[in-house]
């Protein structure tokens, strides 16, 4: 059998694929964070909680209303997005003129409340969310058994990431967004309702988190804890990527997913540290991040 670094090439490929799947979640989450940060200058600490919220909304839709996975895929981002819009209107919009740290602290509080509420009502051991029948089972790829659902997650996340990227890079709404990132006052002087744009952006970022949540539900337990540890890793991803570009956030997400996947094979004990170690190295070599512009 062919070997790479002492392990069979097939296992190696399998692990790469698994890393890519994790990278999909990192990419989707860091993308949402980057979109929000880019325009609002708010580090959305509640991003992890909104991801968890998305998974729970999916679960509740299923158990209480009998709404299954496919409609939930549309409904969940909508609901979480509307939630984001409300949060932005009621609270975040009051904080823009202040030090960005207040945005961070507010969303931190929000994250605690969201997590606390779900913990209180649904406990912590998690709730089941079955893989939709259409995607049940798996495919033998020769080098590994790939659960169909995971294949779908990779595809879906690629679609979402590049869809968002295209939305922002290729459409009129996107050109408002990008222009407003550069010079919000001027764009507003042109007659664009920038405050509304900010609201929608936060909504969009939240919706992305919610979507990641419902995509994650059939893989991970739907649990109030699912977001809080993940978010710190995603922060590190964002620091590594830098806040320069949407594409940067996406690419870094996938890259670090792969790096983590490889660590899980060669030195699994450190797989939770690898992202942080990469972060430290990047900070030393390129303080603005891989894709970031000088602040």
């Amino acid at each position, binding site marked *: 059998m062919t070997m790479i670094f002492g392990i069979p090439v097939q296992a190696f490929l399998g692990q790469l694929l698994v890393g890519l799947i994790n990278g999909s979640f990192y990419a989707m989450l860091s993308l949402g964070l980057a979109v929000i940060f880019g325009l609002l200058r708010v580090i959305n600490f509640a991003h992890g909680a909104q991801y968890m919220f998305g998974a729970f909304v999916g679960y509740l839709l299923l158990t209480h209303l009998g709404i299954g996975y496919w409609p939930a895929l549309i409904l969940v981002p909508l609901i979480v997005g509307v939630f984001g819009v409300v949060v932005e209107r009621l609270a975040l919009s009051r904080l823009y003129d202040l030090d960005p740290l207040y945005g961070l602290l507010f969303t931190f509080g929000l994250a605690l409340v969201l997590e606390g509420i779900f913990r209180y009502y649904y406990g912590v051991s998690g709730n089941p969310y079955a893989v939709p029948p259409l995607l049940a089972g798996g495919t033998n790829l020769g080098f590994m058994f790939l659960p169909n659902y995971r294949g779908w997650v990779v595809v879906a996340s690629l679609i979402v990431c590049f869809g968002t990227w295209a939305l922002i890079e290729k459409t009129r709404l996107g*050109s408002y967004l990008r*222009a407003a990132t550069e010079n919000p*006052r*001027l764009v507003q*002087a042109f*007659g664009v309702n920038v*405050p509304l744009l900010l609201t929608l952006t936060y909504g969009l970022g939240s919706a992305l988190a919610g979507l990641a949540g419902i995509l994650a539900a059939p893989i991970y337990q739907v649990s109030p804890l699912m977001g809080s540890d993940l978010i710190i890793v995603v922060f590190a991803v964002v620091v590594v990527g830098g806040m320069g570009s949407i594409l940067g956030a996406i690419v870094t997400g996938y890259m670090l997913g792969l790096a983590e996947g490889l660590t899980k094979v060669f030195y699994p004990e450190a797989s939770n540290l690898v992202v942080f170690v990469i972060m430290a190295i990047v900070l030393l070599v390129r303080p603005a991040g891989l894709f970031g512009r000088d602040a």
Partner: protein
Amino acid sequence: MTSAAPLLAVTGLNAWYGEGHALHGVDLEVFAGETVTLLGRNGVGKTTTLRAIMGLIRKRTGRIAFDGKDLMRLPLHRTAHQGIGFVPEERGIFATLTVDENLVLPPVVAQGGMSVEEIFDLFPNLKERRNSPGTRLSGGEQQMLAIARMLRTGVKMLLLDEPTEGLAPVIVQRIGALLATLKKRGMTILLVEQNFRFASRVADRFYLMEHGKVVAGFPVGELPDRMAQLHEVLGV
């Protein structure tokens, strides 16, 4: 030309940058179809006047009426919809947007704007570069783009801040010709200009600013009589 009420009337306009008091009671009027130039040395408050009219400076007092409507209370993004377009001093071309995207960025606020095709007819070299990032253009092209993108929106009035600044003489001529064309189409223009020679060719009237105030106003015909004063104030 000066019979009806002015399209833009500014009275007693004060403005501050933080604690720096930049405008000390500016009064001026611009009538429909006119081209009016604000003259003055660096730092007297010409740019500030335009920015205050647009609402880009929050800390302001006084009255600004446009087309009979009070602009003081409008939120920033509603001002443009009254029919005013702003071409800032630093041009405000967006680096992350292509020429095309820059061009269509400002929303259309009224009927009667030019189509993209018409604009490209007017600025053939922009058409050539329509897919390059906005800030890759030369300074002159950027200036044209900054003016061009306001033409699409159907505004009645343009506020132009030093459109010839840093531009080679040939381009300055082209811009002069453009302003003449716009004027023929009935556009009202409030121009801020350091380049006195250029201003004297395009303007119908002048206001002279000093220390955050308008100190004189006169039509182009009086120019020869005013040269002494201008010499003193502008050093020209």
